[in-house]
């Protein structure tokens, strides 16, 4: 009996600390930076899923590459794997003498960035998808990059509702959290705006960040939603979304991608994608930094400045009729003018 418990306990331990083995040594040399030239290098720590997720992280990386090309900066990235490596990765970059600006990609970095920013007051930090807590003050050297995902999701909701033949559409979220709820709320209200009779089936992969990298589960949720009559499913689940695309291929139904243009994942099955211009946001921040215009505080990207939008180009022209695009653009105008308000729970 003892052995069984030891085995199970170890299994659980091992499961939760899976990738801790990669923790890197931290040196605290950053506090003595008194170099003459201002540090120009940019550091970036990836979110769960890491590089090559064809979504969020790749977009951030694209922004950095663009900055390297156009602004001539140097950068360094760390792919922390899971869990507690995030903070040490941020600290490692911040403590390097030549690094002046450090990015954390993903809302999961919010608390880590707050802590590290206080430790390194002379360095600049930026967090993509920073989750803003009104009761806490954002440190002066932190730029909180926020997107109005609900607006972009509203628009793809309109497209989904108008294209649905079964009057049922689906939504798959990665981790149950405030950020992903924004996607869901915007999407649901977009669907209701376009067609009050259209029903939204929604499901979440998990309540932990693991939900962003479990395509097997996402595929099963997608298959269930398709079986229940949904014919278009929108996902906001990072790497798990690959499971949705597999299900769409299998059932010959449609999917809507997220963060980046995901048409390449399943050509012909991806109706459109809700794109967040993470690359632009990263690039702009780097630009401000190199021009000494970095101010910190909250930077919001919405429909107005094309920070969020949907994909409509040569590849998916045949999937969405022009009439629908007109209606979607109308909704976009109303949103920008404030005629439609999206309620966030």
């Amino acid at each position: 009996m003892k052995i069984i418990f030891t085995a199970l306990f170890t299994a659980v331990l091992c499961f939760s600390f899976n990738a801790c083995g990669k923790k890197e040594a931290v040196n605290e040399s950053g506090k003595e930076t008194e170099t003459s030239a201002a540090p120009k290098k940019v550091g970036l720590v990836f979110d769960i899923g890491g590089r090559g997720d064809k979504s969020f992280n790749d977009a951030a990386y694209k922004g950095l590459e663009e900055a390297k090309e156009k602004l001539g900066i140097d950068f360094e990235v760390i792919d922390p794997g899971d869990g507690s490596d995030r903070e040490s990765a941020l600290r490692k970059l911040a403590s390097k003498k030549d690094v002046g600006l450090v990015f954390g990609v993903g809302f999961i970095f919010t608390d880590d960035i707050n802590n590290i920013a206080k430790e390194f007051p002379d360095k600049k930090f930026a967090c993509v998808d920073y989750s803003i807590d009104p009761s806490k003050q954002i440190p002066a050297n932190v730029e909180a990059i926020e997107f109005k995902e609900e607006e972009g999701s509203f628009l793809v909701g309109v497209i989904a509702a108008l294209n649905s033949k079964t009057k049922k559409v689906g939504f798959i979220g990665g981790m149950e959290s405030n950020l992903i709820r924004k996607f869901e709320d915007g999407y649901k209200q977009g669907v209701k705006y376009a067609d009050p009779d259209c029903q939204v089936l929604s499901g979440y992969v998990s309540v932990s960040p693991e939900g962003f990298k479990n395509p097997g589960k996402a595929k099963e949720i997608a298959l269930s939603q398709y079986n229940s009559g949904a014919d278009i499913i929108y996902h906001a689940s990072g790497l798990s979304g690959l499971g949705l695309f597999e299900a769409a291929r299998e059932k010959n139904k449609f999917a809507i991608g997220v963060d980046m243009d995901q048409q390449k994942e399943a050509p012909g099955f991806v109706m459109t994608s809700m794109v967040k211009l993470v690359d632009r946001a990263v690039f702009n921040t780097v630009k401000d930094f190199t021009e000494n215009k970095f101010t910190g505080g909250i930077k919001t990207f919405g429909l107005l400045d094309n920070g969020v939008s949907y994909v409509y180009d040569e590849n998916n022209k045949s999937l969405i009729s022009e009439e629908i695009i007109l209606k979607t653009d109308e909704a976009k105008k109303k949103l920008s003018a404030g005629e439609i308000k999206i309620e966030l729970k």
Partner: protein
Amino acid sequence: MDLLSSVISLGFVAQVLRLMTPFYLGASAANFSERGGVINISVEGFMNLSAFSFAVISILTGNVFTGFILAVLVNLIFSIMFGYFTVSLKINQIVTGVGFNLFIAGLTKFLLVYIFSSSSNTPRFEGLPELSLFKNVPFFGLFLTDYITIFCFLLIFISVYILFKTKFGLRLRSAGENPAAGESLGIKIRHYRYYGIFICGFLSAVAGIWMASNQNSYSDGMIAGRGYIALAAMIIGKWKPVNIFFACLLFSAFEAFEISLQISGSDIPSQLIQMLPYFITILVLIGFIGKTKPPAADGVPY
């Protein structure tokens, strides 16, 4: 109402069977190893490894069958290593298992970056072909489309036969129950422990291959704890193939139920719903099925 109709449907049955496949293969894998007296908690790692090698080899060679065979081979090589550590060197089996899990998690991610310069997933490839034999048979045609799922059903009988009806099974069990008695009758206990680990390596390879084939790609961490659930199912099934099958069925049915419940839009907080399969595990473990008794010499190096 919606929920009820979605649960009583063929789609639901098919989903339960799909979810059950990796659980049952993983649990049977662990069972063979433990029947031979070696606790193998690295089933998770072995599944991860074979999913990875299957995907990589299939992509590089363009042939899924080569991928299948070589992925099994890779797992067997790792099984030899596992056996060498636990049987020949008599290192603590749980420590070795944890070590293998961590090593494989790191190795796959490292190679993923090295080969595909992506730390999250491989490109897409066509997985194993579907079985078309039963396609036109009503009812069965809907879910008997997968070779490996069908193999799962056969595996129940194969496991029972091997473990309880053959000389090999008797000797394997003696290695797990009372190795000293077995040895006094001239059985080479260490050999049998190796055999158990080999079967474990093979079955967990099939489980991992199924995962990657079903997704048509490998992504980092895609096993997502299924290997550990399999271990729990093995314990709940009291190390008996048929019972293990029902334990796996229980888990997968609850997981499928959780999905249906979420989709039905019920007001129950989804945190509670998602907790269900694990809650059931604990409920079962605290005594709903009576005392679970592992093989007597399970985990004891010999």
